[in-house]
């Protein structure tokens, strides 16, 4: 069933059960996202896609909020723009990304977003905790300095590959991704070395071993393709 709602003053129609994000994209309006990835479920981890609901003035994540009839949504207000910029700055202040020597330099969703929101400096103090790098896996590596805790790897490995190697441990600023039961990745025997999490990761946190600066290019649509093809039984 089709529903009608208002997005940035324009009437648009959307399918029942659709998220605000999908409805907006169908209508040609782009909303910045970071933890959202086509092919896996949404969790609302990054808050980049926050939109404003008219009336209440409430801010909700577009990726996890379903549309409803008569809804009035604003996705681009000065306040939202400011919040998005603050969010990106907070991410950069939290860990030391060292873009200049990153495997994903130039192919990084976080970098793209920083440019998109116009981040020219970071207003917060840098925390830069000494994070470790796990290169125990024979093919891939994980650099926690560059992880933004979007959980794409967690969802990809669980929902698409079905191996559920990744998880998040602890809370708040202490949160970390872990592999297996917080073991070195190379010792987790459920990992099939399929490489899907490498592709899913929006930054250079998960990388192919031996890759050097700006060498990681990721084809994320392949993941959505795999998932859809399987669900729609396109191969049988």
């Amino acid at each position, binding site marked *: 069933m089709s529903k009608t709602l208002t997005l940035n003053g324009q009437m648009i129609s959307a399918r029942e059960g659709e998220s605000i994000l999908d409805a907006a994209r169908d209508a040609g309006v782009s909303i910045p996202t970071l933890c959202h990835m086509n092919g896996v479920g949404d969790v609302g981890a990054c808050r980049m896609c926050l939109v404003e609901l008219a009336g209440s003035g409430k801010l909700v994540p577009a990726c996890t909020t379903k549309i409803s009839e008569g809804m009035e949504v604003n996705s681009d207000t000065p306040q939202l723009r400011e919040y998005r910029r603050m969010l990106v700055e907070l991410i950069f202040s939290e860990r030391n990304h060292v873009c200049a*020597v990153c495997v994903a330099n130039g192919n990084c969703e976080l970098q793209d977003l920083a440019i998109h929101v116009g981040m020219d400096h970071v207003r917060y103090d840098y925390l830069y905790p000494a994070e470790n790098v796990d290169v*125990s896996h024979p093919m891939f590596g994980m650099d926690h300095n560059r992880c933004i805790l979007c959980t794409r790897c967690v969802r990809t490995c669980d929902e698409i590959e079905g191996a559920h190697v990744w998880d998040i441990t602890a809370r708040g600023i202490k949160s970390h991704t872990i592999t297996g039961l917080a073991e070195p990745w190379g010792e987790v025997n459920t990992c099939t070395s399929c490489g899907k999490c490498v592709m899913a990761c929006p930054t250079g946190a998960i990388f192919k*071993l*031996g890759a050097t600066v700006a060498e990681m290019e990721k084809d994320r649509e392949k993941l959505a393709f795999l998932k859809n093809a399987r669900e729609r039984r396109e191969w049988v």
Partner: protein
Amino acid sequence: MSKTILIDPVSRIEGHAKITIYLDETGAVNDARFHVTEFRGFEKFCEGRPVGEMPSLTARICGICPVSHLLASAKAGDDILSVRIPIAAQKLRRLMNLGQIVQSHALSFFHLSAPDFLLGFDSPPAQRNVFGLMSSQTDLARGGIRLRQFGQTIIELLGGRKIHPAWAVPGGVRSGIGDDEINQIRERLPESIAVAQQALQLYKTLLETYHEEASIFGNFPSLFMSLVGRDGAWEHYDGVLRMVDSAGKTLCDIEPHHYADTLGEAVEAWNYLKYPYYKPMGYPDGMYRVGPLARLNVCTHIGTPLADAELREFRQRVGVDGVVSSSFQYHYARLIEILAGLERIGLLLDDPDLRSTHLRAAAGINQTEGVGMSEAPRGTLIHHYQVDQHGLITHMNLIIATGQNNLAMNRTVKQIAQHYIRPAHQANVPEGMLNRIEAGIRAFDPCLSCSTHALGQMPLHVSVLDANGQVVHEKMR
């Protein structure tokens, strides 16, 4: 009353340094020191990072010679992977290093040092720079700028960009070179060779003019060290690391993995540079020089016709029994190396191996220790890494050209100061004299951002002291 004269900062060298001259009671020079006050912490912060990241990380030590670090680091990485890299990768790396030597030497000679030779050491400081050179020696300055661009173009065509190309990797290189690029380089070779030859001709006409400078700008016997081909030929990327004595006789060939048995590193409280020395002779007697002058003193020949002819003339004109001891002649050596580099580039361009598409050997971590050496424009560069079983850096030591020339630079400053600064000057030393001291340092083309890569303390401040510790004079420019 003894006085101290400081020159800070030394202009037209890369990085930040200062020179202190200690006068005795009569106003004559008692001692002189060359301090480096810049601070970089590379060896420390590379710890914990994957070895594959080192070429691009360490290339950031220096904006002037990133390629040298890139190559030494990639070679240390090759060693840790225990691979013999594909032949094309090896030759492409050589090509890039030659481009680097040409561009860096061109910068040193034409942009930084030629103003002194051609406009005179006593010419007004405001004109004694590349812009002043531009207006009085337009053709030479232009040619020099184009020569530098030529070297940079090679680096850019191979690595994708001029500065910090993350192109060499443990196991090989990331991309090859096509016919278009090869032709682009080839087209500009004749012009570049002509510029190098003109500069050499001009330099030789100045040998008389600067006879006095040449005799006291770091003119003393010392050991020399550089890579050299197994047949004795001039080398910049591979071969053996050789130490020769002041008469040019081979003292030893140094095993890369055991360099620390032969090379010691002393530390002085007043300087952030480390002081490498030849261990068997102790510190500071084991002073040795690296760089263009050392390479030409260590090799038996260059292996290309134009450069070999120049090498013979060089040894006859400014050498004693074939060994050139004056640091002033680093400039001369640099010009010959530009020519040698250009000729070798020409040979490489014709090499069919260059077009091979097999560029990178794949391997895991097979050793926990690796040493990589290359000849940077300024001298031998050593990268030494220790890694854990997964290839994360646990320890790093970098031995850099300017550090190795440190002892010789100090000797040079003292020699020049003693010659030019007379008691009659009191502390008010004429500008031209100070410029000569700077020029003595600049002959080594020191790259100070590289050589102070190690963790130290913050820079010293400027002061001129007499015997009572009173500030009496400062010279800043």
